């Protein structure tokens, strides 16, 4: 069952990659705000308003 070792190594590499990304996410402040991101994606930025209105959700 030598394959087990390889699969363990590979799985652990993936796991380490994700652990690294998780730590990065926390350090980077990705999870500091756990509400605003959910609302922000609802704003449309595709209708360009000539005045500099910030990300107006004019159409939806």
């Amino acid at each position: 069952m030598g394959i087990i070792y390889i699969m363990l190594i590979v799985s652990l590499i993936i796991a380490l990659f994700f652990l690294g990304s998780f730590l990065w996410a926390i350090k980077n402040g990705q999870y500091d705000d756990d509400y605003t991101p959910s609302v922000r994606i609802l704003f449309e930025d595709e209708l360009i308003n000539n005045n500099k209105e910030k990300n107006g959700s004019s159409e939806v």
Partner: protein
Amino acid sequence: MEVQKFSYDNKIVKNFAYATIIWGITGMVVGLIAALQLAYPEFFNDYLGFSFLSFGRIRPLHTNAVIFAFVGNGIFMGIYYSLQRLLKTRMWSDKLSAVNFWGWQFIIVCAVATLPFGITSGKEYAELEWWIDILIAVMWVVFGFNMFATILNRRVKHLYVAIWFYIATFVTVAILHIFNSFELPVSFFKSYSWYAGVQDALVQWWYGHNAVAFFLTTPYLGLMYYFVPKAANRPVYSYRLSIIHFWALIFLYIWAGPHHLLYTSLPDWAQSLGVVFSVMLIAPSWGGMLNGLLTLRGAWDRVRDDVTLKFMVVALTCYGMVTFEGPLLSLKNVNVISHFTDWTVAHVHIGGLGWNGMFTFGMLYWLFPRLFKTELYSKKLANQHFWIATLGILLYAIPMYYAGFAQGLMWQEFNPDGTLTYQDFLETVQIIRPFYILRSLGGLLFIIGAVMMFYNLVKTARSGKLVANEEAETTVSVNINAKIKGEYWHRTIERKPIRMMILAILVVSIGGIVQIVPTLIVKSNVPTIASVKPYTPLELEGRDLYIKEGCYNCHSQMIRPLRFETARYGDYSKSGEFVYDHPFQWGSKRTGPDLAREGGNIKIKKSNFWHYQHMIRPKDVSKGSIMPAYVWLKENDLDVSIIDRKIRAMQTLGVPYPKGYDKLALADLQKQALEIATDIVNNQPAQILKTVNIEEEINKLQKKEIIALIAYLQRLGRDVSITTVTNNK
């Protein structure tokens, strides 16, 4: 603060959308053909008995088409749309996007051009031959590179949860695909899996399960976190839950693969590990499902009017059902009934049709009016699609659940005197045949719905005009191009594309090194049962035919250590029996009986002549058989041109053929073929023998493919039945 203007690439989204629809319908039609073959085998045998249409070749085409062509294009469509908008950036390179698109379509065309003709590596859900595997890896990296470059060039600092799902999808699928596709090419159209037997099975289902996890689930969950809030125009129920959902899901999923191998020759501890993680998976799965459904709290009235939301609600409901059922099926006592039956088929179709299919339809109905800046052509037609598709799923799944459960129980049934109640496997097939008809009807309804959608969406597109480059603007708080003193080191690299590229190549080459290592470490050929010998050249060719015809789609070669299995098929399978099996052929479905002891168990062993007749006209020998008639096997000459290369390849993989055997293989092959052909011809009924020239008949027959396949079938299970089995654990 600065306002930046840019544009989104909608053309690539449109291309992937059309590809999704076209390949989706194609893949489903192929599935319907496969389903109809099980429902009406006589009709197919009599009128449509083409080799390229036979079930064993069509079924891999169906699975590959709906997974990698339909859902694959659906993933790209959704990601290319949402990623740009979530990051407020156009895709990093339009050229790479185009390469990704055309490359992926080319791969699909290659699949269509190879699988029906028996060019297959014989590993479920990874059947494509070695050079297509390489193409897939390249295209996947192109996609990943474009995605990461876009992420690095983003105009928002925060990465919305959907993007995390996309990243996990890319990374994991890349690694799984590379490791599972590790094979040794013999010719352009033939390769052997590097791993053998149990090891191959473990890698295959590690891949197979995670193909479900990271190709059919995580990307779609990411898309769900974007499209459900967008369609409902309200924030996701809990953003915090979505983060927990993500990390928990990807942590648990990767370990669950062995639940596909319960009660097989896989070591018990690995099976148990798979079960434990599978049961735990219900928590994050349902977390995600509830998060999606609860997003609609207070907005359920919109579900009544909005067809996109309707599709998505059913998709999420199916996701919930299928992820509840999954852990259930991975419990050993449930798995005993469900494994090898149509229950599994029902399970995956709730996932495939319900979760992936319905969600894709929902996305398409939402995207087309936006891409073409118009209204949906017909809401009524879309609603009809919704109902017909939902009905189709039910009509597909319920009969299959019943069939699977019923057949699973019938296999276990004993008479009071200790004999099997349904000794004849075919009896259990007869009882479930009506359900195969119902299931085909369900599939047909689902396809009709998809065609209605196609019409509706084309009409929608015609009524508007594609906005290929959608203008957008956003305020950027920090000039991301300015060098900031004391900034995090990675930030600096991100702005230096060349340095970034070199680092990326370094990281990828580590992957390459990791790839080479297995070949040096894995000793899959350690014989643990002394009597197990390599296949003879003819048997090896026969085995390749077994793979080519896709026999593994309907026949298992794995007898579980359960009384009702050993009573039917013979002694249970040991891991040491499979050490020369590149690739393993355990199978996962018993539409026909298990073949692990076909040639070794004296109670079920048949004569060469029986096999010969059975292959050409199964019904004549086995009344009520639904097996395709393999007429072409007695007409096609066996291609022995690369037998020497095959032997050398096997030697490379560690199969102990004597040195220089590749030169002698052909002579041995012909000798064995002559013996079998002689036996078959001489066993023909006397009245036929009188009318033919026996010698000429033998001469003709010995060169045919059917002889090799019979040789292989007669070999199955023979090694261990000769002597006693040594302890192999």
